[in-house]
């Protein structure tokens, strides 16, 4: 839209008509680009409906089946037997008859997430320094660290798990390593962005005392970025909890394995029991971590 500025009109009426002409041209341009965008959008929409087989007929046939499915998973509870023992139909203990087993699995899942978060925090923090443009000791280490983190991050953890299950065998170890790799990438990238925004003068001050690169990172960078690292790692922990609860779908251990089994074997009531338990746990941990995070930020503001 290269609309020329009016060149000093002779009379005001002339200038007015020039203004109107330009306005019209501008509107025409705008309308055209809107139309083109809209057209493109509709084409992509039609194409994606075609590709994904999202036909209304299939959908209409499928949705009632989904409702049916949900209905099947819901437990049959009766009010009078609600708190009876595990052998009585209609009671909560009957619904959650496998509760002990679930709790063990939940405990395993949470520990998978804690361990993976701990290790990936250390690895991600360590790699974030060479992966920051302003801190890297030289261009080669920068590129290596940066590309490495990007690859680790952009491969989903479920895909990592597929590979590691082959390497480590089925079980939690494969899942833990998969989550470690992916979240090291995610945290390293995030941390390096934090690193790239710090003031550089303390580094220079430390370098001038004859300190090494590692000492510069330890004493001039780490104290500046640590609070931000910590609040971000909590956020990562929340998402690692979610991941570790489904990584069992591909053999990575944790409660996901059980969930996968009960879904494919159509143990309907156990599906709802497990999902409910997982959602509750995840929500509790989210709340807890949000609380801690606010505490961290609050402390930061006061100091």
């Amino acid at each position, binding site marked *: 839209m290269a609309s020329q500025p009016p060149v000093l009109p002779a009379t005001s009426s002339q200038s007015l008509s020039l203004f109107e002409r330009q306005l019209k041209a501008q509107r025409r341009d705008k309308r055209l680009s809107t139309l083109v*965008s809209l057209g493109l959008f509709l084409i*992509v*929409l039609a*194409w*994606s*409906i075609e*590709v*994904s*087989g*999202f036909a209304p007929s*299939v*959908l209409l*046939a*499928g*949705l009632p*089946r*989904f409702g*049916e*499915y949900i209905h099947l998973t819901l437990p049959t509870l009766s009010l009078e037997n609600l708190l009876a023992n595990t052998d009585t139909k209609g009671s909560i203990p009957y619904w959650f008859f496998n509760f002990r087993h679930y709790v063990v699995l939940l405990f*395993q899942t949470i*520990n*998978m997430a*804690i*361990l993976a978060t*701990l290790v990936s925090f250390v690895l991600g923090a360590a790699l974030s320094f060479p992966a920051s443009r302003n801190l890297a000791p030289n261009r080669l280490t920068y590129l290596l660290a940066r590309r490495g983190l990007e*690859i680790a991050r*952009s*491969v*989903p953890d*479920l*895909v990592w798990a*597929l*590979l*590691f299950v*082959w*390497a*480590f*065998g089925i*079980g*939690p*170890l*494969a899942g*833990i*390593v998969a989550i470690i790799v992916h979240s090291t990438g995610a945290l390293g990238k995030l941390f390096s962005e934090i690193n790239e925004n710090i003031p550089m003068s303390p580094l220079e001050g430390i370098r001038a005392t004859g300190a090494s690169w590692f000492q510069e990172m330890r004493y001039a960078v780490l104290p500046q970025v640590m609070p931000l690292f910590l609040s971000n790692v909590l956020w990562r922990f929340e998402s690692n909890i*979610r991941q570790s*609860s*489904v990584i069992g*779908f*591909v053999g990575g251990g944790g409660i996901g394995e059980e*969930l*996968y089994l009960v*879904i*494919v074997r*159509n143990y309907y009531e156990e*599906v709802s029991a497990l*999902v409910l338990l*997982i*959602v509750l746990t*995840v*929500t509790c941990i989210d709340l807890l971590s949000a609380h801690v995070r606010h505490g961290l930020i609050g402390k930061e503001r006061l100091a």
Partner: protein
Amino acid sequence: MSASPMATIDPATRDLAAVLAAYPEVFKQAKLRRRQRTAILLVIAAYLLFAAWFFDITPYRLFGGLGNMGIVIRSMVVWKNVATWDYASLFQGMIETIAMAFLGTLLASLLAFPFTFLAARNIVKPVLPRHAARRFLDLMRGVDQLVWALVFVRAVGLGPLAGVLALIASSIGDLGKVYSESVEDIDQKPIEGVRSTGASRAQELRFGLLPQVLPVLLSQTLYMFEHNVRSATVLGIVGAGGIGLQLSERIRVQYWDQACFIIILIVVTVALIDLFAAFVRHRFIGKPVAARF
């Protein structure tokens, strides 16, 4: 406070005791800090030991696994029989993935739009409907996308349709949450301005609120799309369409070179989608919002 002149600060000649006596609290604090640090390190070390025991992580298993991983990586970089690979189905899978993400995000954003207002504190004053809306969103978000996918596969059968439905289900929760939060963050003045002209409540929202939040909502929808492209790549692993099916099949039969090709395809596609979204955001929205997914 004695300003004692120090001819030299050679460690041998200093009078440590005198400084200690003059500033005891500095040394006390140093000791405290050292204790704290040791305590934290001990807790972490103890936890690591516990975890190693609990998950039976031994150096033998660890290095054995990493050794196997070395084998995998070695066979990933040597590409054999490249001409015979079934490229058509690979690219078909990738295209299906993008289409699923597009459709899922679009429909989820339409379905989540009412929650923009329903779950926002400054629009819906009564507690009950707002809380109901929020709990519903929390539930949708709380169930993982992969669980939704598996459930929809049981309900509507294998294929991309189940994937789209799974993306819709979990994106409604995410989008509804960030939509309503962005409404809560807005500036009240334009709304008051519209109200002062004697507008109705609906008109207030339409002319005072919507122009403010629409760019933000669009931008967040774009972020959701980027996110959904990433997650749609794995839905195929449980049979819900997209490239994930191809990938898990190749891995099952240990065609590591083809698996590597698919992973590269995924990484490149995701990067291109991110670039495209950044372009759209820059060109049509122009209002920077932080990503929340």
